């Protein structure tokens, strides 16, 4: 498993993403009032980098091997752990003062984003797609960056709460993120368990390559 992890994972990309997350949060710590949108960028980057970890460029060969998707996902999880550690460290360094006493809520955003990235990528892999994470990262990273910059409908739909957001807004955001995380975990479990209803659907629709 370790040999597989060492060879199959895009370590350079993962380390670069983790480093960029730390840099982004350091910038936020330096001037949170102006640079707060970069917190959202970091969250998007975590989602994209996590999804990318599960891409299998040699899927045509690997998918016929005896070891299944759950084994490969487990083998690739150290990279996700590294990203999670980077995020934890970044939020810890940001400190309570900067994040207005909402360290937990910020931490949840990143972890849920990672769960969503992993769930999407594993779902795609379970359906035979080779590199679903790349597509996900290409769309999600800029889309989340732009959303955190523009913060549309922020009075009613708080995705990335800001220093001026009310306590209710922070709570609403955390509830939304938690619900998203729950759905992501369910999707991940479904993808990894290879449930019978899913196999039937797959066999009906045929191969997707």
């Amino acid at each position, binding site marked *: 498993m370790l040999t597989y992890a060492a060879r199959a994972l895009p370590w350079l990309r993962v380390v670069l993403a983790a480093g960029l997350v730390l840099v982004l949060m350091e910038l936020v710590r330096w001037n949170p009032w102006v*640079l707060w949108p970069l917190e959202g*960028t970091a969250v998007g980057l975590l989602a994209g980098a996590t999804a990318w970890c599960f891409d299998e460029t040699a899927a045509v060969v690997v998918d016929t091997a005896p070891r299944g998707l759950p084994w490969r996902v487990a083998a690739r999880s150290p990279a996700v752990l590294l990203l999670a550690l980077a995020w934890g460290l970044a939020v810890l360094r940001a400190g309570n003062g900067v994040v207005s006493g909402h360290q937990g809520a910020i931490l949840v955003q990143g972890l849920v984003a990672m769960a969503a990235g992993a769930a999407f990528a594993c779902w795609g892999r379970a359906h035979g797609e080779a590199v679903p994470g*790349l597509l996900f990262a290409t769309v999600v990273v800029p889309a989340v*960056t*732009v959303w955190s910059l523009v913060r*549309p409908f922020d009075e009613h739909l708080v995705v990335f709460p800001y220093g001026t957001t009310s306590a209710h807004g922070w709570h609403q955001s955390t509830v939304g993120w938690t619900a998203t995380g729950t759905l992501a975990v369910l999707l991940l479990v479904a993808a990894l368990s290879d449930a019978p209803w899913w196999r039937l659907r797959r066999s009906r629709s045929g191969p997707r390559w």
Partner: protein
Amino acid sequence: MSSTTATGSTLRSLARREIRSYLGAKLFWFGTALTLVLDVVILFHLDNDPGSSGSYMIAPAALLGVLGLVVMFGLTRRSDRAAEAAGAVAVSERTRTLALASATIVPFSVAIFSFVVAVVALNVHPPAGYVVPPGISNAYVYAQMFGDGVMCAVGGPLLGLLLARYLPKRGVAAVASVLLVIMTILLQGGLVGGEQPYRVFWFWTYFLSQGSQGGPGQHHFTTHPGNPYLWVLYLVTLCALGVVAAVLHDPDSDRASLKRVALGLVVGAVVLGVLTMTVGFTESVVSPEVCPVC
């Protein structure tokens, strides 16, 4: 039929196809839908923000410009893959590049519509007294809105085209969008100190915004040094330079002529950038009233 006519006809046909492809991009529609909804919010004053129409341009710049970078990067890569698959290609890279550049008419149209809505909103619901400092005209505000809103909605996709031509690697568009946003936030005048007069050389910058001094409820709106009228011309020159540089990538193009044009545009851009810094608006003008909602 002459070869020029044939090339023109091919270009028109390809341009129509690329416009259709741009219109088929989901990310474009995501950005457009949000931009239009935010236009409605500004027009009908649903957010009760007294300065929102004057600062509307962050929406088209980010939602059409930054996302447009990703869309155009993808379209260019797809065009290249199709050309590779075709083998001995009848259509040159130059023609394909120009066709892709033509597709920027799509985000341009949406951005122009959004700009018109913002101008109407600005006149129907004039911003609160503290937003525009004394002596600053409506034309100044419109020029900033046009440069940051419309020009950047076109510049983003052109940047995507340029990146796809010179850095056709996986993930480049996503990383570039993040770096673009980081640099843009850092170059907003006042964040680093000294009001950053050189910031006008960047693709997107505020000329009128809330100052960075003080905490919530203590900000004043202020102009940042720089001439927004000349800056719009600078951005037009940059966009033209982007197209020429993208065409220049084709090894079969007339590189000597294109290099001369590119050099001329670089000189023009540098001159316009320097003039933007030095002509007319070289000092900050601070609104005397505090912004109560900043």
